[in-house]
């Protein structure tokens, strides 16, 4: 079933993509093949593959148990939030906030999670920002405090 749904989505993407590609026209051109041929070719093949996927008999997708899926979804949202807050909160704070719940998902106690969070946040900041010269954000709030 999952394959049928995905096949449908991909078929839609390929049709929508081809429709969008119609407008890719070079104002003037020296070459016989313009900017839209290659994407259209790829999308047409994608559409055919999507139909083949839907017609395939065997379906062997095993999704994780609902409880695990929920946790994986939550993990995804946490990483997404981490990505978005990365420079707003600064590396150390954002990392600490990300590590605690993720560590909990993988069976850490609250204490381990908190220690791990602070440890990774501060440790990686020192390692990368100070020792390896890879600049990391300190966070807008720090800048605000410092005026």
């Amino acid at each position, binding site marked *: 079933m999952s394959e049928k749904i995905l096949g449908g989505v991909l078929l839609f993407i390929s049709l929508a993509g081809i429709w969008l590609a119609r407008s890719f026209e070079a104002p003037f051109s020296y*070459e016989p093949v313009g900017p839209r041929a290659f994407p259209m070719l790829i999308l047409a093949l994608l559409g055919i593959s999507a139909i083949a996927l839907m017609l395939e008999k065997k379906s062997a997708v095993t999704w994780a148990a609902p409880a695990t899926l929920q946790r994986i979804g939550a993990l995804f949202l946490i990483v997404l939030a981490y990505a978005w807050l990365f420079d707003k909160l600064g590396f150390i704070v954002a990392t600490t906030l990300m590590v605690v719940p993720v560590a909990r*998902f993988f069976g850490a106690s609250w204490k381990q999670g908190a220690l791990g969070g602070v440890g990774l946040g501060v440790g990686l900041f020192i390692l990368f920002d100070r020792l390896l010269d890879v600049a990391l954000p300190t966070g807008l709030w720090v800048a605000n405090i410092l005026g």
Partner: protein
Amino acid sequence: MDSTLSLLMQGFAVAGTPENLMIALIGCFLGTVVGLLPGLGPINGVAILLPIAFAMKLPPESALILLCAVYAGCEYGGRISAILLNVPGDAGAVMTTLDGYPMARKGLAGPALSMSAMASFCGALVATLGIVLFAPLLAEWAIAFGPAEYFVLMVLALCCLGGLVGDSLPKAAIACLIGLLLSTVGIDSNSGVYRYTFDALHLQDGIPFIVIVIGLFAVSEVMLMLQHAHAGVAPMTITGRLMFNMKEFMLAKWTMLRCSLAGFFIGVLPGAGATIASAMCYASERRMAGKDHQFGEGDVRGVAAPEAANNASANGSLVPMLTLGVPGSGTTAVMMGALTLYNITPGPTLFQEQPAIVWGLIASLFIANVMLLALNIPLIRVFVKFLSIPNWLLVPGVAAISMVGVYAVHGNTFDLVLGTVIGGLGYLLRVMNFPIAPFILGFVLGDMMEQNLRRALSISNGEVGVLFNSPIAIALWVGAVAMLIGPRLMKMLAERKERVAA
């Protein structure tokens, strides 16, 4: 031959500077650690370290030496968890569990580890010699390729990978086509037309390679690790002797040599990587062993064969990437992406234009493997300690380090969010058994494919026949179709035969 030798010496001069030796040592160490951690393999190691190497502003040859050392180290590391935990540290080490773990249970963990390190070294050494001998020849031959041949060669590479990996052809095709499609996002360099940017400023230059790589190989990996989280099994402890003895060595020496040679040639072929090489070599060695073997119950040849093969093929798969500019595996696709970040285009001309980089890389493989052998036999107990890193610390650590890399290169959170979203999609695809290597290969090759196709058709004034004109192109097309259909056809025929027999 003389010139090859002098070029190689030049390479050693590049790889032998104190900084580069230090970088190689660090890479070997990190690589072994990443390799031995179950769930993280060479592709994750290279993917996570690539942006960091770039952000540290390492010069290109040093960055490549780091990545190569990590790649080589991962192939050594995978065997440690295979032997001590019965869990392969990376995909190439699956076969090593078959005899490695039984050996460890018999109290022979030490010899199993040292023998497999020796076999890894032998495989890598043979393959690196193979690169020295064959890569310049192949590069010279490929220099005659025109855009049409190049286009078909890339089709062949994608077909090889698509035909060999995964359980279904449509899935492999879809993975590869999504990769190709994502590579078209951004401004078309020939005409200046915006394609699929949806008016987003950040998408104008296309989706950055690092973002795709981190999404697919760090974010989705982290999600999969939560799905496959298994209760920690305590690793076997190493008791007794550390080294293999003379008898074991004599028993395994031809196995090592045979598997190294076979592994190298399998590795050179696009598509067939370390996993296939080690499985094939294990099976054939088992068949050749005659009656009084202990394969499956802890035969020393059973750890030597897959390790020699997987290291040889991992090194061998660098050949098509370096000489043709067409990688044949997921990891080499990532390495090639690394080269393009430095504005170095791999391909036949690389050997002439950037000899310092090519030969420095090859020399660093020799150096890295000597280092790895030295690290892996006496210091094995140090590496075993890393097996006890709990997942609750490892997983968020991986997430944080990946984000550091992306942020350091691009300096904006749009890319971090985009990488996470791609990681989520990657997770869905992987759970549905889509192979991910064709995806990354398609993304890496997409732009070159389109450019070569357009160039070929410009030369012929739009006449499509140019793609089928030269004998080389025709041979490549035949190969592509055969590789796409052949492996599955053979599998189907074998299944039918079985059914008839039963």
